[in-house]
């Protein structure tokens, strides 16, 4: 692989906070069956099924199913959001990135974190006050329901499907490696378990699985980071110094001159190849920062809390946990350089990491706590994938049953039981699609799909949401046309970019040279919404503008807000 394609690959593999597939794209040999890991994973599955059973008894209405009856506290929701966000990719992918290139991994972590404050300052409370179950509730609040919900449901499904495929393929690859199970079985196990959680336990089960997993993952990462620091007398500088020595040693062993080796070692302490041209850098940063504010399964979490105050609290907790977690992964990555890269037990004949680059944190757990801790960390990694796909599936199902069926097809006249039935069927269908696509894409490079999901969310959902909530002049026609333009342009540019045009389709040179389309597609979406809305002289536009003041009062004060528990 050339340096450029490798960079592109790593970039896109790691674009996802929830992507598990990093570095595991080429078919990996199936490893020996890992019994401690399977036993501990079995214990996790039993616990989550018990949670699902408990949740199922509490899931009677659509409000319970989509929004956990509005009964989640800010603290709990903060943990659940963090759980959605701290995926196997954050844990394995970012620590692998730090293991390989050092400092560059920190840049991803920061990009993933900085979207949260902005969500809080501009959207979180208003979302809670206006919405009920889906972000389309908010985006379509004062507009004509049909077209806006149709567009929102379509964009939700696009984001969810791309995200799901990446997750399912990542899950299959990872489980094959960690547990020694065949790929297709792994994908089916994930699909079936996720269906059980969502089908019977709805948002209550999904939230609690997410919380359990977040606590396990935070606990695991804390233990690992403390063990690494203890190894160096709690001196970060000592850790970095040793890591630089190790990297220099590896370079020297590879035939580099003394000066080259020293430079190679020192390179892990500063930004390297990650960011080449400023446009890609800013564009990629925009996709990370604003994409988070447009991910339907993340936005849906704000409807599980009772009011704006709890929504606000959930973001503070989520930001704190996610930030803490990224600091831990930074230490874990450097710890792996020292404790894994020097240990022949973790390396293959060529000196590369056994099982692929993604395994740095997993090998580190073995170096720290032996087979048992390795099993525990593997089980937590699997649990992480399960929780994330459950949240995605629920979000996709709500777009079909709540936005398409109940609002567009039945014009808001569907009963709760009726809507719930459609929702559950949708869950089954979506899970079947996810399993089939997961198997179909086994040998494909799917890493770009999550960065595609982020770019689509930043270029479609985010501008639509922000302007419909904050700009009086916004009209039905404006959001439908502008949101669609943003998504289509982001999609097309992404296809023409190095990640797909070169790495997947095998063309020699990309037509669109930058890493991410967002710096073009997101402003274009804002501009289109503004232009189309401003020129919109239709009768509907007059209604849309007239309804703004009332919507604004609701958004700002929470007066007459939907409380999921009231239904």
């Amino acid at each position, binding site marked *: 692989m050339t340096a450029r394609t490798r960079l592109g690959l790593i970039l896109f593999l790691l674009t996802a906070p929830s992507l598990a597939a990093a570095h595991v794209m080429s078919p990996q040999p199936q490893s020996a069956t890992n019994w401690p890991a399977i036993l501990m994973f079995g214990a996790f599955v039993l616990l989550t099924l018990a949670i699902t059973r408990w949740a199922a008894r509490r899931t009677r209405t659509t409000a319970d199913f989509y929004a956990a009856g509005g009964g989640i506290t800010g603290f709990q929701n903060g943990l659940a959001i963090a759980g959605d966000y701290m995926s196997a990719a954050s844990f394995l992918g970012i620590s692998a990135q730090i293991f390989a290139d050092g*400092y560059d991994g*920190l*840049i991803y*972590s*920061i*990009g993933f*974190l*900085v979207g*949260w*404050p*902005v969500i*809080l*300052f*501009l959207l979180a*409370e208003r979302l809670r006050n206006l919405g009920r179950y889906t972000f389309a*509730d908010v985006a*379509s*609040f*004062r507009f004509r*329901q049909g077209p806006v919900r149709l567009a929102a449901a379509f964009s939700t499904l696009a984001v969810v499907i791309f995200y799901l495929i990446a997750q399912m393929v990542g899950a299959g690859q990872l489980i094959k490696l960690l547990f020694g199970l065949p790929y297709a079985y792994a994908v089916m196990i994930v699909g079936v378990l996720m269906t059980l959680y969502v089908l019977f336990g709805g948002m209550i089960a999904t939230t609690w699985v997410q919380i359990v997993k977040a606590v396990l993952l935070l606990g695991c990462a804390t233990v690992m980071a403390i063990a690494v620091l203890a190894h160096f007398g709690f001196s*970060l*500088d000592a850790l*970095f*110094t040793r890591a*630089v020595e190790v990297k220099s040693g590896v370079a020297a062993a590879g035939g580099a001159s003394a000066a080259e080796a020293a430079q190679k070692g*020192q390179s892990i*302490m*500063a*930004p*390297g190849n*990650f*960011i080449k*041209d*400023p446009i890609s*850098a*800013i564009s990629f*940063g925009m996709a990370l*920062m604003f994409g988070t504010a447009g991910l339907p399964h993340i936005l849906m979490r704000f409807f599980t809390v009772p009011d704006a*105050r709890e929504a*606000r609290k959930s*973001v*503070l907790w989520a*930001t*704190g946990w996610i*930030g803490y977690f*990224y*600091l831990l992964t930074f230490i874990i990555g450097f710890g792996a350089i020292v404790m894994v890269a020097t240990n022949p037990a973790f390396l293959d004949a060529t000196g590369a990491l056994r099982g692929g680059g993604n395994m740095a944190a997993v090998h580190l757990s073995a170096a720290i706590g032996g087979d048992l801790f390795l099993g525990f960390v593997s089980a937590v990694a699997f649990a992480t994938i399960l929780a994330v796909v459950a949240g995605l599936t629920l979000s996709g199902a709500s777009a079909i049953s709540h936005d398409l069926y109940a609002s567009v097809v039945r014009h*808001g006249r569907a009963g709760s039981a009726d809507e719930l039935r459609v929702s559950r069927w949708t869950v089954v269908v979506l899970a079947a699609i996810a399993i089939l696509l997961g198997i179909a894409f086994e040998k494909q490079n799917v890493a770009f799909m999550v960065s595609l999901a982020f770019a689509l969310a930043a270029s479609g959902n985010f501008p639509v949401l922000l302007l419909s909530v904050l700009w009086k002049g916004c009209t039905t026609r404006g959001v439908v046309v502008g949101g669609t333009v943003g998504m289509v342009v982001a999609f097309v540019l992404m296809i023409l970019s190095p990640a797909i045009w070169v790495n997947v389709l095998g063309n020699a040179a990309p037509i669109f040279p930058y890493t991410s389309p967002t710096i073009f597609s997101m402003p274009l979406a804002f501009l289109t919404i503004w232009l189309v809305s401003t020129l919109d002289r239709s009768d509907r536009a007059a209604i849309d503008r007239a*309804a703004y*003041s*009332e*919507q*604004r*009062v*609701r958004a*700002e*004060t*929470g*007066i*007459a807000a939907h409380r999921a528990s009231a239904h």
Partner: protein
Amino acid sequence: MIDHHDEAERAMLAQVAEDPRYIDLVRKRSRFGWTLSIIMMLVFFGYISLIAYDKAFLARSAFGGTTTLGIPIGIAVILFAILLTGVYVRRANRHFDPLLRTIRQDAGL
């Protein structure tokens, strides 16, 4: 969604929309939210630009040891993001919520 709400509620919403305290609250809170958002964007895109334009600066030794300037700066951006959300939540809890409560009470809620 608007169609489902009754006349009394709409009259009340229209009344709140005219309330000078509401207008003041919305103006202050929006300005506060946008100010913090712009600060966060400046810090993040400033950091990204530093990486794009001056990698050598971040590669300098920070405290005379192996630790480079990039490390404390990167960690500071993470801590700053958490701190800024804390600043918003604190002001919202202490300042905006009580104002909102009186507006809602006077509207009969």
